[in-house]
């Protein structure tokens, strides 16, 4: 276990109490993580001491801000081991990253082509492809899950026909916690000349991600699920692909030369960053990366795995509770249903005890439908959670059962 006293001190919000005066047990980390003081102060320091617009200012602040912003990009590159910082595009978050790819690379999809996704995708990695398929008269195909909520790899291989131009899948399921064997899947897809986009939103705070080792063509993630502020995220794309696809948004910062008749666009990565970006957000993301590196991803993973294991074991022993899925590898997410109790009623009663969880369909309505569920209660863990937090969760679930039974 990580040293909890030190970690708790890093997250001021964890000292909050709920309306009933109960201390906070924050188990909604798959929705967004809390922010350590190091990140909050880094953003604050940027605005206090370095704020200016980037890439245009001649004055010293403009030069400083530009240098800070580009250093953040380099920090992201190192964190995911991209080959070049040109392959790191700052966006608002995973949703925008996926939309960027569907709106640009998607132009290469034509009538009769196929797009492959999985049954466990968040709406953000489903709706853009579904809409693209409608527009292009392409076909959207879905890799099903087996009973344990792992991807059915045999069916995947059958679905991977020569017509599949793009495969979009999550690294980790936000609803179940399933960790997908992305490297193997990418290898198979590439043998089929299929481009692969990985939604890494749930992975970044829990696993080392090496995009060159995974060999994926695109990797998308949000800062706010890895201790950074909301509003900043990253699209990694292989240079060879990014340089051949059109810009996503048009405007300032992304141009080389503009006349009334035509425009030539900036080089990578600026071609994809129209307008003034979220510079403070990038600073926060870089500070979050420093924070994760300081603790060590492996230690974080070991810590949250222990919590997840305890939650799985203890919840499974409670009568009337069914944990959803039993994947081969599970990240720090436990989704469960409670017999006779609606997830939102359960979440409200847990909230009364100070235990913050997510309830509902988790933006994966088709997955819920395929599992025959309307929704689940989801507890998701992070570095600042403790074994006692799991105890509080289990006790509170039992209290709610008693109250609503």
């Amino acid at each position, binding site marked *: 276990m990580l040293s909890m006293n030190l970690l708790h001190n890093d997250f001021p919000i964890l000292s909050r109490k709920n*309306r*009933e005066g109960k201390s906070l047990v924050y188990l909604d980390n798959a929705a967004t993580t809390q922010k350590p003081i190091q990140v909050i102060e880094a953003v604050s320091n940027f605005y206090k001491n370095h704020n200016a617009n980037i890439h245009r200012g001649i004055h010293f602040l403009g030069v400083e801000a530009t240098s800070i912003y580009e250093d953040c990009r380099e920090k992201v590159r190192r964190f995911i081991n991209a080959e070049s910082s040109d392959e790191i595009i700052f966006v608002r978050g995973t949703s925008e990253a996926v939309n960027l790819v569907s709106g640009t690379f998607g132009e290469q999809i034509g009538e009769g082509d196929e797009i492959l996704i999985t049954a466990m995708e968040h709406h953000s990695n489903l709706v853009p492809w579904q809409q693209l398929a409608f527009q292009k008269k392409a076909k959207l195909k879905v890799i099903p899950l087996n009973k344990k909520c792992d991807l059915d790899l045999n069916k995947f291989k059958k679905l991977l026909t020569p017509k599949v131009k793009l495969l979009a899948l999550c690294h980790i399921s936000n609803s179940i916690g399933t960790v997908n064997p992305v490297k193997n899947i990418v290898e198979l897809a590439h043998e089929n000349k299929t481009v692969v986009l990985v939604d890494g939103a749930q992975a970044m705070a829990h696993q080392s991600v090496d995009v060159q080792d995974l060999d994926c063509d695109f990797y998308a993630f949000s800062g706010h699920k890895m201790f950074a502020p909301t509003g900043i995220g990253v699209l990694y794309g292989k240079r060879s692909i990014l340089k051949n696809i059109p810009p996503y948004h048009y405007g300032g910062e992304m141009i080389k030369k503009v006349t009334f008749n035509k425009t030539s666009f900036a080089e990578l990565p600026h071609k994809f960053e129209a307008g003034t970006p979220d510079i403070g957000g990038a600073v926060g993301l870089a500070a979050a990366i420093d924070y994760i590196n300081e603790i060590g991803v492996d230690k974080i993973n070991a810590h949250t795995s222990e919590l997840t294991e305890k939650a799985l074991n203890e919840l499974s022993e409670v009568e009337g509770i069914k944990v959803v899925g039993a994947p081969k590898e599970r990240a720090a997410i436990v989704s469960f249903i409670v017999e006779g109790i*609606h*997830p*939102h*009623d359960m979440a*409200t*009663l847990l909230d009364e005890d100070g235990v913050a969880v997510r*309830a*509902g*369909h988790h933006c994966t*309505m088709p997955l*819920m439908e395929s599992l025959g569920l*309307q*929704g689940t209660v989801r507890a998701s863990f992070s570095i600042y959670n403790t074994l006692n937090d799991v105890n509080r969760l289990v006790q509170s679930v039992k209290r709610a059962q008693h*109250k*609503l039974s």
Partner: protein
Amino acid sequence: MADLYHPAILELSKNPVGFEKRPDAQYIVEAYNPVCADQFEIFFDLKEGKIENLTFHGYGCALSKASGSTAVRLLSGLDLQGSTKFWNDFQSIIQNTGKPDIPDLEPFSPVKDHPGRIKCVTLIWEEFFKELERIK
């Protein structure tokens, strides 16, 4: 803080009133909450301007089922004017803008302290009255 799960609400959620499908109803309305995917159908007839045979059916939380049951209890047999008065009273209780003395609605008053659950209790009522307005 007042208990959101008043015994009357728990009772109505476990044994909802008028919880049945009526595919031959004169009007069938869908009530869907995209936040939680709760989904009901509301069934009713209108005879000489009065609401008759009001029922509902579907999937939802304790609050939404209790609220649907209360709609069945209070609105059956009323005309538009009479039913709208209850809807206005219900909203004033939930929004804490008034305190009408209606025992059937009073158990829902703690919802005012739970903004995330307001839609749960208004879902069926809202869609029902939208349909009444459309018919009018």
